[in-house]
């Protein structure tokens, strides 16, 4: 049977808008802080686990290799795992199995993100997360998927935006007590959030976590090593992860089933049968305020649609019945993507040891859960951590290992904002990355159909679904699909957003209305744009129809459908 595995040390850099250190240097600072926190040296480390989100941020292909020596991996077993936004929590899972399998006794787990290198805006790295053939031609930006999911969530339960904004307020207030935080604000109010600029309705600026740079590291050890290193190890009691279908327009976005699957896996392993009683502190993933609520429901800590009430009633506050994101979360501490996830593991480590200082939740919590999320609203990563009942935390020792001042900031050439922007001191590089994707059998035929003015699906006669977009395989039955079917050119709006900004956050002259449209006569749906309609006249459930480009202008592209408009509009 697997060995018990514990977290024995943690450290992090400050989360900032633009770090003057390189990604390697950030990795080193966090690693050093984590090792110092448990008085270990690199010689004590058997293996290094690393994670970091898209290579596009740091602007380096095979970024894990580039970062490896900064993360202490020279000459050591080293692997970079990667599950999008879920990566930060996953790297703790990676460290767990590296130790539990007996391949290492002491592991250094590092999560780094330096987003500020991406110009003109870090959101550029997200332009290529969308389906290369069916979605990217529509010019989607990252805000869309959050806005679409948030609208669906709000619409399904009739939620009040005020209750969701309460999460942003709570987390930014909590972060005021975090020495590494970027956006701590003790006096922020719900009115401030509701008055902030609308980016992609219903998402407003203060609903969103900030672009950030930073790194976090934790030390993970086998039971034997952990007992040697510390008298207060924090055990990794359960781990779970789960990835849903990439065909996100075919899913109901109202509930994160994949998070629930990951949570059940972790709870089973931890022997947790009643999570609402047995979890004392939670660090759910909160890149947007509604996501924390969505995830608390996915973690089975609240009934569906009920987490917003808990936020409103103070249940999630640091002194509430279920403290949630006592760190300040991504909304308050910051969101250097992979690092932000591992920050949640570090926070549980400090909370369960009673070392969280001003952020300490009352009542000597024994068990906590950390969770992250990512990809196309698709992956859940969950870790349950607990302390020995006997080792009641000593409340008196705030021991957060934050690198407050980069030790060599003054020794190098730190670029001023002006120098950075003007590129007189910065090193610039434009990547020449060009691709020509084979659409393949299924999507190739689908595009031919569009050129002919038809929407085509594939039928799976096992689960009796008509798949749009079509595929040659059924992902549920894992068998070949059976036949081509022409489906209707009409559909129903499942969710929509009114987007006011371009991907680089520049304002649009006219807002655009992306929508997920379920296609009549199929079990699937498409991401597309709504047109011939005023934003105020759009609603979830609206019946729409495809508006085709003139035959002579069609090219076999998703853009052969110009947009969808309300049915019957001429």
């Amino acid at each position, binding site marked *: 049977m*697997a060995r018990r595995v514990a977290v024995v040390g943690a450290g992090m850099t400050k989360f900032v808008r633009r770090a003057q250190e390189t990604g390697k240097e950030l990795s080193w600072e966090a690693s050093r802080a984590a090792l110092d926190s448990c008085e270990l040296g690199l010689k004590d480390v058997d293996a290094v686990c690393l994670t970091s989100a898209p290579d596009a941020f740091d602007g380096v292909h095979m970024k894990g290799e580039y970062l*490896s020596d900064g993360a202490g991996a020279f000459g050591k077993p080293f692997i970079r*795992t990667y599950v999008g936004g879920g990566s930060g929590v996953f790297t703790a899972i990676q460290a767990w199995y590296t130790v539990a399998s007996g391949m290492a006794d002491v592991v250094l787990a590092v999560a780094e993100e330096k987003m500020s290198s991406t110009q003109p805006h870090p959101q550029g790295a997200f332009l290529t997360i969308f389906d290369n053939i069916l979605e990217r031609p529509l010019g989607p930006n990252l805000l869309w998927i959050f806005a679409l999911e948030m609208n669906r969530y709000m619409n399904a339960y009739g939620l009040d935006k005020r209750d969701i904004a309460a999460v942003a307020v709570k987390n930014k207030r909590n972060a005021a007590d975090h020495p590494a935080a970027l956006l701590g604000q003790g006096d922020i109010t719900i009115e401030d959030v509701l008055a902030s600029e609308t980016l992609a309705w219903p998402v407003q600026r203060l609903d969103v976590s900030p672009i950030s740079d930073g790194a976090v590291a934790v030390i993970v050890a086998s039971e034997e090593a952990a007992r040697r290193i510390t008298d207060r190890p924090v055990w990794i009691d359960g781990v779970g992860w789960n990835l849903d279908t990439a065909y996100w327009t075919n899913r109901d976005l109202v509930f994160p089933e994949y998070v629930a699957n990951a949570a059940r896996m972790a709870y089973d392993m931890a022997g947790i049968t009643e999570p609402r009683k047995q979890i004392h502190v939670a660090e759910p993933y909160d890149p947007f305020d509604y996501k924390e609520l969505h995830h608390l429901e996915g973690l089975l800590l609240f009934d569906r649609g009920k987490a917003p009430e808990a936020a409103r009633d103070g249940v999630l506050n640091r002194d509430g019945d279920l403290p949630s994101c006592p760190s300040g979360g991504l909304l308050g501490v910051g969101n250097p993507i992979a690092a932000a996830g591992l920050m949640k593991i570090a926070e549980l480590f400090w909370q369960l040891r009673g070392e969280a200082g001003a952020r300490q939740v009352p009542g000597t919590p024994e068990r906590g859960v950390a969770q992250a999320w990512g990809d196309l609203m698709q992956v859940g990563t969950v870790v349950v951590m607990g302390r020995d009942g006997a080792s009641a935390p000593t409340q008196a020792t705030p021991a957060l290992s934050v690198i407050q001042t980069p030790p060599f900031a003054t020794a190098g050439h730190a670029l001023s904002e002006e120098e950075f922007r003007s590129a007189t001191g910065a090193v610039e590089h434009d*990547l020449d*990355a060009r691709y020509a994707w084979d659409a393949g059998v299924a999507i190739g035929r689908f595009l031919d159909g569009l050129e002919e003015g038809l929407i085509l699906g594939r039928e799976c006669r096992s689960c009796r679904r008509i798949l749009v977009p079509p595929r040659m395989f059924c992902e*549920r039955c894992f068998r070949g699909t059976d036949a081509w079917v022409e489906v209707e050119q009409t559909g129903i709006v499942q969710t929509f957003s009114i987007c006011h900004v371009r991907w680089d956050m520049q304002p649009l002259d006219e807002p655009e209305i992306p929508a997920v449209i379920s296609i009549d006569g199929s079990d699937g749906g498409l991401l597309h744009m709504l047109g011939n309609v005023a934003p105020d006249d759009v609603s979830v459930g609206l019946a729409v129809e495809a508006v085709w480009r003139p035959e002579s202008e069609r090219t076999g592209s998703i853009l052969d459908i110009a947009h969808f408009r309300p049915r019957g509009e001429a």
Partner: protein
Amino acid sequence: MEPRVAVVGIGHAGFVPISAGVSYKELMYEAAQRAYFDAGIDPRTEVDSFVCCSEDLIEGTSIFDEYVPDQLGAMQRPVQTVAADGLFGLVTGMMLIRSGIASVVAVEAHSKVSDVRSLGAVEAFALDPVLNRPLGISTFTVAGLEMNAFLERTGLSEEHCAMVAAKNRTNALDNPRAAYPARLVTEDVDDSSPVSWPLRELELAERADGCIVLVLAAEDRARSLTEAPVWLLGAGWSSGSPTLESRMWGEADSTTRAAEAAYRRAGIQDPGEEVDLAEVDDTFAFRELQHLEALGLGEASDVAAMLEDGELDVDGDLPVNASGGSLGQGNLFEANGLVRVLECVEQLRGEAGERQVDEAYVAVAQSARAMPSTSAAVAVLANDAGAGG
């Protein structure tokens, strides 16, 4: 190493310079179907965890792990990506099984590199952005520097490298899946265009598309799934220095460390005696020789002598890259490591057809990541006879 882990299913698709008309998803589906059929399992209910291997910029998609579950039967299941070569995926699958969190794991890696229109620029994007890229060098330059340092240190010649290229391309003639079989002789290599001296064009593995899926299982499960399990006796992996300024030029030091760990875990005392065949990284011809040395299969001069004497041929004492290697089968990028494991499994099962190695019991698969990375991984595999029953 308990519980023991075995490869119980293999499947592959593609292995062509350009897989025209199929998408990467369809390529993956084909390989996965074959692997699950080979293992006799239903992925929707009988695979506990899935591991994929990819790098975003080779795919042209940020956060590529989004797009893997459906075609592997992995939707709403534990799926992860390692940003590394397939052999690191195999290692990950082994750890998942040994940790007890899974008893059956599918490991996938693929190349759809024909989609990349600016491959050289993407590869060069792996170089240090501040110190190296402004020099305008390519990763072939790094390979040339490495080759020269290796030849200088060992006293081996360009002729030895040409012999490797000729051997592997010729071996590929007996491998039905190989993308670049050719009846090549050393003079052809000598006559090929210089790339970055001393490296010549026919010493580079040409790119190819393809996908490999392996199914791994814990011992008790493996016994119920197959009568011919191939045991993963041991594995090791290591990084070196990613910076050109401090790497150990000419030495595959990461492979040395990975091999030591793999042999220790596998209980291999004398690899030269105990290993029956090897599939090693030959994305540049000289690397086969460099890696055989690092794998402890002989001093560089011994390796050169074995090459000259034909002992590295399919019918020699130590067949190396009987498959044709990357030079013969094509460079499948992050899938290269699984290509080597695939060959080892076929050889150890006695299913390698015309290129079957006699008395194949213990095999070594090794992989090194693309320049300028120095990371490497090693796996020791054996059939029941090689594993001591």
